[in-house]
């Protein structure tokens, strides 16, 4: 029974060590913001932060992240996250919205590391997050706008 730090709280997860973090979050901890898409770390829907690093939770065993600090869309806070989320709403980025949790977690990590990303930086950081509604142009625009607001 691994103990995980989830959104600032220490939680004992009653599950085998080889359970993917995604299912521990969704089915055990009841945090459904991270989504299931492909189950093979190819689509980015399940992206969470593990010690601040965007990570595909569907291919991360909970036994391997015991003692790490995990942040999900439900718990992401701070100036960067709040700016990204407010810009996301102001620019109506989501359509179906199913993958936006993952997009936002990747965008927050990018802007935390690279406050003024170029288009190439954005493409590099976001290429693992699919959007079947093809909102990519708004995602890129929203990241630039968030960077502009964060710089101000």
């Amino acid at each position, binding site marked *: 029974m691994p103990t995980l730090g989830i959104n600032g709280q220490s939680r004992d997860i009653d*599950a*085998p060590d080889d*359970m*993917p973090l995604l*299912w521990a979050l*969704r*089915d*055990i901890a*009841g*945090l*459904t*913001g*991270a*989504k*299931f*898409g492909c*189950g093979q770390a190819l*689509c980015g*829907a399940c992206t969470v932060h593990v010690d601040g690093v965007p990570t595909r939770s569907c291919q991360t065993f909970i036994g391997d992240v015991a003692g790490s600090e995990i942040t*999900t*869309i*439900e718990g992401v806070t701070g100036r960067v996250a709040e700016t990204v*989320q407010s810009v*996301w*709403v102001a620019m*109506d*980025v*989501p*359509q*179906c*919205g*199913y*993958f*936006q*949790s993952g997009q*936002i977690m990747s965008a927050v990590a990018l802007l935390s590391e690279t406050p003024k990303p170029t288009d190439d930086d954005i493409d590099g950081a976001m290429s693992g997050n*699919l*959007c*079947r*509604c093809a909102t990519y142009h708004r995602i890129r625009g929203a990241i630039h706008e968030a960077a502009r607001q964060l710089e101000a």
Partner: protein
Amino acid sequence: MLHHIMSRAAAKTNVRTSRRGFLIGAAVVSGGFAVGFRAAPAFAQDPVPGPINPLAAYIHITADDRVTILSSQFDMGQGSYHGIMTLVLEELGARPDQTDVIGACGNIPAYGNAAAGGFAQFSGGSTSMASSWDRYRLAGAAAREMLVAAAAEAWSVPAAEITVANGALTHPTAGTASFGALAEAAAGMAIPEASALKTEADWTIIGKDEVRRADSASKTDGTHPFTIDVALPGMLTATMIHPPRFGATVRGFDATAALAIPGVRDVVATPRGVAVVAENMWASLQGRDAVTVDWDETTAETRGTAEIMALYRDLAAKSPAATALVEGDSAAAMSTAVRTVEATYEFPYLAHAAMEPLNAVARMNADGTLEIWAGHQMPDLYQFIASEVAGITPDKVILHVMKTGGGFGRRGVGDADVIVEAVATARAVGWSAPVKV
């Protein structure tokens, strides 16, 4: 460019024709899903004779001053709820911040797709706004007139002296009242036979940016509820083992190894394959890998892609082909063309690849009603098929129309595939628990 537009028009015609053909066929086969059996979804009005009451079928206003629009059109991300909200708000005069939109079903006269004849409720072929354009503006206008009539009666003033704006009715001397305060009385007013609609010059919402999508915030903070997020007390999660060929059936299976996995509760056969029922998704996925299934392919489709494509080529070469559009004399024009370009387009069997996996949740209740949460793109058909699978009458099937993570047409299928899987699995475990597939 013109050719492109015409191709699109032709393609659209084909889509509508084929879907209509299918639905009429299904109605004949099923003996009447399209003729209005009594339905009881959570948010719908039973079809009743006479005019449709907009304050029952389309717009619910409650005493707490909330306005809920009942959308006939399914929202898979394309924003049909938002589009319909703008149509209603333009005429109704409610505030966006007091307004929600939910999916509705179970009333074909009210929700039948008006752009396709109104014979059945469905979202597809890019018809949602075409179907809704008159219907929801008229509903908003009629509801506003009924609110005004209720206020006029309560205040004993002429209706013409009452103005409506920002979710309130106002009279120069009688005062002001919220929509919520007048909702109950308004619902009992005479239903207007014909309401005058605003002209384009007076629109303040349709086609403008002021009213924004209501779901952007919940789709940005992880709280937007998708079917995959539905959690019910005691709910079990199932994954399906589908046959390797369409149409194959389960002859038998060995679930010994799967049942030894902690969390796996049951392994059951369904008409669409074997379901591994577990306490959580991970146990179910592990169990799925541990089951061996003996498939009976007697009735299965055995042709491969190349053979099917050859069949299509053969059919396409045969005359006469179906004509999608006739405009002008193309044969004469082609005979004098300076240059002709010929092309053959072949499309492979495509995955729609909606990002939220196909899913559904089924729960049999103690009172004999069956609730199903899913992206119900063709709700009346699904209600009927679900009732057949459950062995109950359609009026006992309650559909919760969920907004979904994409659709791209894949949630509108004639065999209601994932709905059948959820209901059949729940039934196979003796209705002992709600089941999410």
